[in-house]
């Protein structure tokens, strides 16, 4: 008998798991994929938004601004990268400056910290690579970029440290109300629980339907991105937005948490939430728009293109509420942008809803909110490197040349709670294969280490999703 079953191992589900792990409860998180962090959380802009563009009074505005204020401490507690590098909304005409002012006023109303309207000269000081056409900008000092993967893994690892159980490859197929609460039916057996939290992202509307709720639909909308090599010539320092127009929010050019430059996303309505295809037409669009902000960007330096799908709700706001049809069911639906920054605030909001709905608040006596991240050999000082290698020689054995990732780090990524089971899982945790050769050199080594650590045959190792096996068979031995 569970107290709480959380559906979905994205950043929202994992944040909720971690927040609720402070209570003395039996909590399970079910994820249909092979690993956590394999859908919307793995492919987005990775931005900790300030919160000035959300409609005042909306749940989005509240969650964003609160979430933003939680990031500095959270990143320390959970040891993931959050770089408060600030954002600029660039205006290229006096007309656009008016929009910048509107955004500023809206931001003040939303109680956003660190907002300022600045002139072209200041813009160029902050970000010399911005186009000379710039007239001014809205500067938001509280915005930044985050490592979205390690944010999510950190939440889940910490939740598991505090007793939460994780069930991967476990897909929800039905919800049934009974006298003990809710029976959660999955392809991996049934779970009897008091509360169910729907944090199923792209599938949150379908899960809501299972509980008899039809208040919102997900409009699948995809975004195409281009990620650049870490060449010094392409490096930028901030998050650059364009002034929103009737045509949309514009394309952003941003530094990533690790110092690559990235452009995107498009915003195309698509037929299904499964469609993460990338088209050359979309890339041409982001290239053209990206150049308006930073003319020097050269697509030749691309190392990866990718596409994410937003869990866009037709209601225009996050749908976080307790079901009226099924007691004990709480929805966290339609979490599109700014969902990533809102995640920790959403988790606390869900906590309040559960308490309002009768959850007792007996504390978990063993709760520890802190988690230590995987050591990054490339970031250590000379002395620290030597010490770490002396402690364990595997940290001196470099597997990924481009990002200087050691075997020790990869082993740690696999052995941890909610550890890596796939080549991409290793990549997202420790960056092996995230660099300019994209795993061309380290791929075979990572497969070998995964097979050894997971005690499986190399033919069983996956790239990412369940059906993504890499090796066909052994050649003659």
């Amino acid at each position: 008998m569970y107290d709480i079953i959380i559906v979905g191992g994205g950043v929202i589900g994992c944040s909720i798991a971690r927040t609720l792990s402070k209570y003395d409860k039996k909590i399970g998180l079910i994820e249909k994929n092979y690993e956590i962090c394999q859908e919307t959380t793995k492919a987005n802009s990775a931005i900790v938004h300030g919160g000035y563009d959300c409609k005042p009074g909306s749940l989005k505005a509240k969650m964003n601004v609160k979430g933003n204020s939680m990031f500095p401490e959270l990143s320390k507690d959970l040891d993931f990268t959050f770089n408060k590098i600030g954002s600029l909304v660039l205006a290229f005409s006096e007309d656009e400056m008016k929009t910048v002012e509107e955004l500023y006023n809206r931001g003040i109303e939303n109680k956003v910290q660190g907002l300022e309207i600045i002139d072209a000269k200041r813009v160029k000081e902050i970000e010399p690579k911005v186009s000379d056409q710039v007239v001014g900008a809205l500067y938001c000092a509280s915005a930044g970029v985050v490592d979205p993967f390690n944010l999510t893994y950190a939440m889940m690892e910490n939740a598991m440290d505090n007793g939460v159980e994780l069930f991967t490859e476990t897909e929800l197929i039905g919800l049934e109300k009974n006298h003990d609460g809710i029976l959660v039916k999955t392809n991996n057996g049934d779970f009897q629980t008091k509360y169910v939290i729907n944090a199923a992202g792209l599938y949150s509307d379908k899960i809501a339907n299972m509980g008899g709720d039809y208040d919102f639909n997900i409009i699948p909308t995809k975004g195409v991105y281009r990620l650049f090599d870490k060449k010094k010539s392409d490096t930028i320092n901030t998050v650059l937005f364009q002034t929103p127009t009737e045509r949309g929010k514009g394309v952003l050019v941003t530094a990533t948490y690790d110092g690559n430059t990235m452009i995107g996303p498009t915003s195309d309505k698509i037929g299904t939430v499964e469609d993460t295809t990338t088209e050359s037409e979309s890339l041409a669009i982001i290239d053209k728009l990206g150049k308006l902000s930073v003319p020097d960007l050269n697509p030749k330096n691309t190392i990866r293109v990718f596409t994410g799908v937003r869990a866009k709700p037709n209601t225009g706001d996050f749908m976080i509420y307790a079901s009226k049809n099924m007691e004990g069911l709480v929805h966290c639906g339609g979490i599109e942008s700014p969902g990533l920054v809102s995640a920790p605030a959403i988790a606390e909001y869900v906590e309040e809803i559960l308490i309002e709905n009768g959850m007792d608040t007996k504390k978990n006596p063993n709760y520890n909110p802190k988690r230590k991240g995987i050591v990054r050999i490339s970031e250590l000082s000379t002395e620290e490197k030597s010490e770490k290698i002396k402690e364990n020689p595997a940290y001196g054995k470099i597997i990924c040349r481009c990002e200087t990732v050691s075997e020790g780090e990869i082993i740690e990524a696999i052995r941890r709670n909610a550890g890596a089971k796939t080549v991409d899982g290793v990549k997202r945790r420790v960056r092996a294969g995230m660099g300019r050769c994209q795993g061309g050199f380290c791929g075979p080594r990572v497969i070998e280490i995964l097979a050894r650590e997971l005690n499986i045959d190399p033919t069983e190792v996956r790239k990412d999703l369940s059906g993504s096996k890499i090796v066909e068979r052994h050649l003659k031995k």
Partner: protein
Amino acid sequence: MLNYDLVVIGGGPAGLAAAVEAKKNGIDSILIIERDRELGGILNQCIHSGFGLHEFKEELAGPEYAQRFIDQVNELGIEYILNTMVIELNKDKEIIALSEDGLINIGAKSIVLAMGCRERTAGAVAMNGYRPAGVYTAGMAQRMMNMEGLMVGKEVVIYGSGDIGLIMARRMTLEGAKVKCVVEISPQSSGLNRNIAQCLNDYDIPLYLSHNINKVHGKEKIEGVTICKVDEKWQPIKGTEQYFSCDTLLLSIGLIPENELTVNAGIEIGEVTNGPKVKSNMETSMEGVFSCGNVLHVHDIVDFVTKESRVAGKNAADYIKGINDSDGKKLFETEAGNGVSYVIPNYVVSGGKDGANLYFRSRKPYKKVEVKVLIGDKVIKTKKMPAMIPSEMVNIPLSPEEIANLNDKIKVEVKEIGK
């Protein structure tokens, strides 16, 4: 801190040949640093034959070719360390490397950069569709098959006609896979003619020139590709689509020299080659630091790498002995003239004691050409060739006498001389 006269970064064919040559020229304190588990570099995964025709006048497999140099390294007692990755090279010629034994600081009088190259990846070509499993660079698949004993697939399409891709077409066929086709966006192959003949034609594998991959099908694992014809501007031509089912897509779309260390050390890099700019003695813009092999520019045959690396090794040895062939002498730039994409070395040392070996490639395929080497407006050498293609590097040596009294730029140009 350890100190050596010469440190060679990279234990592939370039690094090995340079070290051997330096040793033969009287340098005893030499260290080769290799990041992989064994010496020999990428040659270890090239188990096909065809290596050494120029160098040894016989046909060797890649590991055999490498072994000849590994044997010399051992016989000459040259020191090397494996599983060691150089993470930094600074302006004082100090090296920091990481290994299981810890962090190593090494000082050197002279350094040879021989780090090789890497393959261009899928991100560089941005195909339409998903990013499923089953898409590999040809070199990665080659390593998996030939060194790890793991077969990557059954039905294969190859994108790009680089040599590694062509060789993998044959290799996978021999292991029982069906190679459906090789798709090349250019009107000509980027691989050697002999590989087209021996790896594709001999096995009836079609090569689709002026074709592009329109779409990659399959989300978790690749299921197929749609290819189509392209016009001169590489734009797809409607109605020419063809579908091929496959569980494997190999990319053979070019190689890029691995110069992160070089760039971070502040050494000047050439725009076309993506490798360090070198003088005719193979010295980079950092005094006493030499370079050779694929880290300098991508070669199509290893025999040329060996030849070039000997020059680097010998000059590194001279430098250690206090003779710097470029010191105090005038340098003249080389220029890629009509029809030529680049020339290595980037500078020729006037009066250089070993002359200069010019390596270059044509911009496009030519039939019947005359290659001219000019100093200023004066033609000093001509070479008639029945054909010239970008994938085949050409070498013209200049003797010490020919560059004894340089007074102007050296230009290489190609002129078609008709049918």
